[in-house]
Each structure stands twice: as structure tokens, then as C-alpha cells.
């Protein structure tokens, strides 16, 4: 790397010894990015922003929080009432979790729609699913910390999932709790893990970015970059676009934090945890609801747990389940319809997760669960054999159709 591109002597001196400026210059100014990305590509940087926000506010909250069953609830209320700007920081953290999940879910569905998980980006996708899994663990443990009724009973129910495992289940649950129920030891270890897991997420995010920069971003057309005419430098084109996306995101976020801070929460969590009384309706946070619905749809305890984790496990192997070589749904007329069905199915599961497990809700949950697995395990592998894909353009900058109008996905694969 040449050292002449920096004029400032201090920058030059540092860069010669520690090429951070060259790295940044390379990754921002020269990193070629497809010029046709739409606003759905904003959600990656938004997720990064959300992660940083959560870590910064979380560190600050931990300075004022006490991880002890007798003090946890009151220490959170002290943050809300006495600590300078404490209410602001806590509401940002609390709503930040929800917005982080909204952003990440949109990011995932964008990947599904445009086939961003396909070769050569399989590892990029898998690292992303790993981030989702780590986020879920972190969010779950974070929700326990305020030590309200929902914290306590959520922790009890979710940790009890592991008791479904044959033979070792009970011992694992006791081990997770560090006792015979969710108690002080549980709260302490959850606090410790909730603090440290986000840094593990940062590590995986860095790998996610390394994998991304290997082949660059996918794009709405889903075809590979043919040359410089297809790209623009990341900066200033996408820095300004990300800034615009960020301000729009922050407007929604600020509206929630300042005007509806408890909208996505549950009133019962403002009642201190009481191991003797379970609230009438216990519901997980909204971002777990689809998985919760799958759990309850299966009438068997172990089966429910397996299907729930299976719902994430299928995402890990998705790059090999989907046999089509056409990435973008724009050229897959049949898959496109099923994509929207899957999205509605997930939203339906989320709705059902919040409903009582009775009557029509149980039947609907089963249908929706069945569709979810049908979509991943049967539709993805088989659809390419049936589906006639639309012809792909030659390049991003020349949206002229290439190949015959009936070229199938398999024909396209051979052309490459």
C-alpha cells in the first residue's frame, strides 16, 4: 500500500507503522459497491448502529444497576428516577432491543428475497444467523435483569425448555439456574452473560463484514458485478445514503423512546418478581413470539423444543436447501409469491404466539408451523425443478435481457 496518498504528516507517520488509514481508505473510498442497491440495503448498517447503541447504553446502565434479587428492581427504578438522564438511557436500551430486532428481521427477509445467502455468500449468511442466535440469547437474558414479573416468569419458562431433553434435562436446568429455581445465582450469571455476549456479537459482526467485503454486496438484480461501470465507491454514495436511512430510522426510534416508551413492553414487568404468583397472561417479548408459537404448536414437550430450535437451524443450512442459482426474486415469479406467503406466515406465527393456546389458535399455529417447515425443507429444494425463471440482464448498468426468454435457472447456471 502506498503511503503517498495521505498529506497530513501525522497520518502518514502512523499509517506507515499501523496502516489503519489505508485500511479505512480502502474499505470506504475504494470499496466498490453495486450502484443499484435499494433502501433495503440500509438495514445492515442500521443493525450495526443498533448494536453500538445497545452496547454504549448497556455499559452506562451497568454502572448503575445492581444484580441482586433484593435490589435489581429498585436499582432499575433508581435509574428511572434519580440517575441523571437515567430514564432516557434506559428507554433507549429497552426500545433499542425491539428496534434492533425489527432492523435485523427486515435485513434477514431482504436476504431471503434477493437470495443473498447463495454462493459465494454462504458463510456470510451463516455468520448472520449466528448473530441472530446470539442476539436472542442476549435479549432473553437482558429481559431478566429488571427483575419484574415477566422477567422472572420468562426466565423460568425458557430455562425449563431444557428440561425437555431426555436424561440430562433436569440436571441442565439446575445447572443453568445454579439452584432449584430462578434465583439470585441465576440473575447474577445472566447479568454477566448479558454483559459479555454483545462483545461476542461484535466479533461475529467483524467476521460478517470480512466475509461481506470478500465478494461485496449482493444487489436487487442478484447478478454479479461485471466491472467498474456497475459500481460506485462506498463513500460518499452509500455513506450519505446510510446517513439518510439512519435519520429516518432514528425518527421512528425517537418517537418510540420519547412518546411510547412502554408500548412494546408489558405492564407486568413493572411489578417486582414474585416467585409465588404467576401473572395471568405470560407472553415473551414480541420478537420471540413466532418461535413461541412454534413451541406451543407441537403437542409434545421435547418435540416443541426441537421444532423451535429447528426453525433457526433450517436457516443455517438454507444455502444448500435452495437449489436455484438465480438469486433475486425479481426473476423468480413463483418463489416471489411464496416469499410473501412466508413473510405473512411469520407474522401470523407472531400473532398466534401472543394469543392464548386454545381453540382455533392452536390449529392455526400448527398450520403456520407446518408451512414454515414446508417452505424451507420442501419448497426451497424442489421449486427450481418446476419454476421457469425470467431472463437475467447482462449487467447492472446495462439492463438488457440476456439469454432466451425461457431460460431456466439451470440454464443460467451453465451459462456462468
Amino acid at each position, binding site marked *: 500500500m502506498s503511503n503517498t496518498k495521505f498529506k497530513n504528516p501525522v497520518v502518514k507517520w502512523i499509517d506507515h507503522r499501523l496502516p489503519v488509514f489505508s485500511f479505512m481508505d480502502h474499505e470506504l473510498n475504494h470499496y466498490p459497491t453495486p450502484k443499484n442497491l435499494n433502501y433495503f440495503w440500509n438495514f445492515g448498517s442500521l443493525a450495526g448502529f443498533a448494536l453500538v447503541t445497545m452496547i454504549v447504553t448497556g455499559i452506562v446502565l451497568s454502572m448503575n444497576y445492581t444484580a441482586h434479587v433484593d435490589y435489581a428492581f429498585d436499582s432499575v427504578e433508581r435509574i428511572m428516577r434519580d*440517575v*441523571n438522564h437515567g430514564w432516557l438511557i434506559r428507554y433507549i436500551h429497552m426500545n433499542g432491543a425491539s428496534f434492533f430486532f425489527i432492523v435485523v428481521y427486515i435485513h434477514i427477509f431482504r436476504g431471503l428475497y434477493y437470495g443473498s445467502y447463495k454462493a459465494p455468500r454462504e458463510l456470510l449468511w451463516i455468520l448472520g444467523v449466528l448473530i441472530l442466535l446470539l442476539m436472542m440469547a442476549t435479549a432473553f437474558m437482558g429481559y431478566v435483569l429488571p427483575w419484574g414479573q415477566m422477567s422472572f416468569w420468562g426466565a423460568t419458562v425458557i430455562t425449563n425448555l431444557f428440561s425437555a431433553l431426555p436424561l440430562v434435562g433436569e440436571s441442565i436446568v439446575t445447572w443453568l439456574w445454579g439452584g432449584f429455581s430462578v434465583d439470585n445465582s441465576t440473575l447474577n450469571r445472566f447479568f454477566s452473560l448479558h454483559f459479555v455476549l454483545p462483545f461476542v456479537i461484535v466479533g461475529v459482526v467483524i467476521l460478517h463484514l470480512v466475509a461481506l467485503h470478500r465478494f461485496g454486496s449482493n444487489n436487487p438484480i442478484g447478478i454479479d458485478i461485471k466491472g467498474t461501470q456497475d459500481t460506485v465507491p462506498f463513500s460518499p454514495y452509500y455513506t450519505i445514503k446510510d*446517513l439518510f436511512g439512519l435519520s429516518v430510522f432514528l425518527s421512528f426510534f425517537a418517537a418510540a423512546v420519547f412518546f411510547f416508551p412502554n408500548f412494546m413492553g408489558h405492564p407486568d414487568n413493572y411489578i417486582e418478581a414474585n416467585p409465588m404468583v404467576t401473572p395471568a397472561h405470560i407472553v415473551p417479548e414480541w420478537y420471540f413470539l413466532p418461535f413461541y408459537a412454534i413451541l406451543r404448536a407441537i403437542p409434545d414437550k421435547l418435540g416443541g423444543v426441537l421444532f423451535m430450535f429447528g426453525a433457526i437451524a433450517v436457516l443455517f443450512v438454507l444455502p444448500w436447501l435452495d437449489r436455484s442459482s438465480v438469486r433475486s426474486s425479481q426473476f423468480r415469479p413463483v418463489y416471489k409469491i411464496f416469499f410473501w406467503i412466508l413473510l405473512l406466515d411469520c407474522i401470523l406465527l407472531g400473532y398466534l404466539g401472543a394469543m392464548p393456546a386454545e381453540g382455533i389458535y392452536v390449529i392455526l399455529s400448527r398450520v403456520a408451523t407446518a408451512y414454515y417447515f414446508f417452505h424451507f425443507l420442501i419448497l426451497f429444494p424442489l421449486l427450481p425443478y418446476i419454476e421457469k425463471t425470467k431472463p437475467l440482464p447482462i449487467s447492472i448498468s446495462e439492463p438488457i435481457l440476456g439469454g432466451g426468454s425461457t431460460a431456466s435457472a439451470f440454464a443460467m447456471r451453465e451459462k456462468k
Partner: protein
Amino acid sequence: MPKNSKSKKNNDGKRDFLIISTYAMAGIGAASVAWPLIDQMNPAADTLALASTEVDLSSLEEGQSITVTWRGKPVFVRHRTPEEIKLAKEVSLDEMRHPETDEERVSNEKFIVLVGVCTHLGCVPLGQKSGDVKGQYGGWFCPCHGSHYDHSGRIRKGPAPTNLEVPSYKFLSDNIIKIG
């Protein structure tokens, strides 16, 4: 990088201004978010509420001392005897490391109010209880490194650089003081 066409040159200034103000605005936003994150480490409202404390001196007899906690530190209040007051006033300022008259250090000469933290390295001096070592000048004595304080809490011998601090306080009535 693509260039603006020549006809647009006149617009360059406007264009730069717009872009620079956008980034400047984002910078202002980021900077103002930093303040709450810093300010949360300042004392919270409940801590500040304990920043002043009231002490009832009516049961404090002549020659007795009490120690009260104020802002997490010990505060010495001593009801001095006439002899102690006399000694504190008589002494010449020339012999002192940190010259202050007794009048400057009390508002009612019967009561001396001091932050009970040695100005050397922060130990709590002895001298509050009747059996304590009070040092050569009869006031307080720091056991850590041997600083001697007189009846007015002034440093007279030993390593401490300054007199024992007098907290801000006022008499709300004859017998009640408010410290802080």
C-alpha cells in the same frame, strides 16, 4: 469518481454547503447524545439529596465530641471548653504552617465543626473519644503519619500540609446546624 458537468459548476458551492451542513448536523446530533452518557456518572438525585445533613447539638455537653456522616465522610463536631477556646485563640499565627485565626474557622466559638479527614493522605484522625490520643496540641492526632492538630483543627506538627477542612455549615437555630 464521476464529475459534475460544466454547466453545473455554479451549483458546486451550493452543493458543498448542503453536504457539509448535513454532516455537521449529524455531528452535532452525535455530540449532544454524548452528554447524557457522561452526565449519568455525576451524583444522582438521591445522592444529592443527602448532600446536606442537619445535626442537633442540644445534647452535646461541654467537652464532648460527636462524629456525624456527611457525604460519606466523618464530620467532627466538638463542644469546646472555655480553656480550649482560649488556647485556640491565644496561639500566635507565626508558628503555623497554614495560618488561620480561630475566628475564621468557627461561627459560634463554642462549637468547632471539621471534616474528619487528615489533609495528608486521608486517614481519620483520633481525638473524638475521651480516651483517644489527642497529640501534642490537644486537638486531634492522625495515627497514620503523625500529624498533630490543635483545638481549632489547625495543623501544628507532622506531614499534613493544611488545616482540617471546615465544611460549609450554618446554624438554623441555637442548637441545630445544617452541614452542606
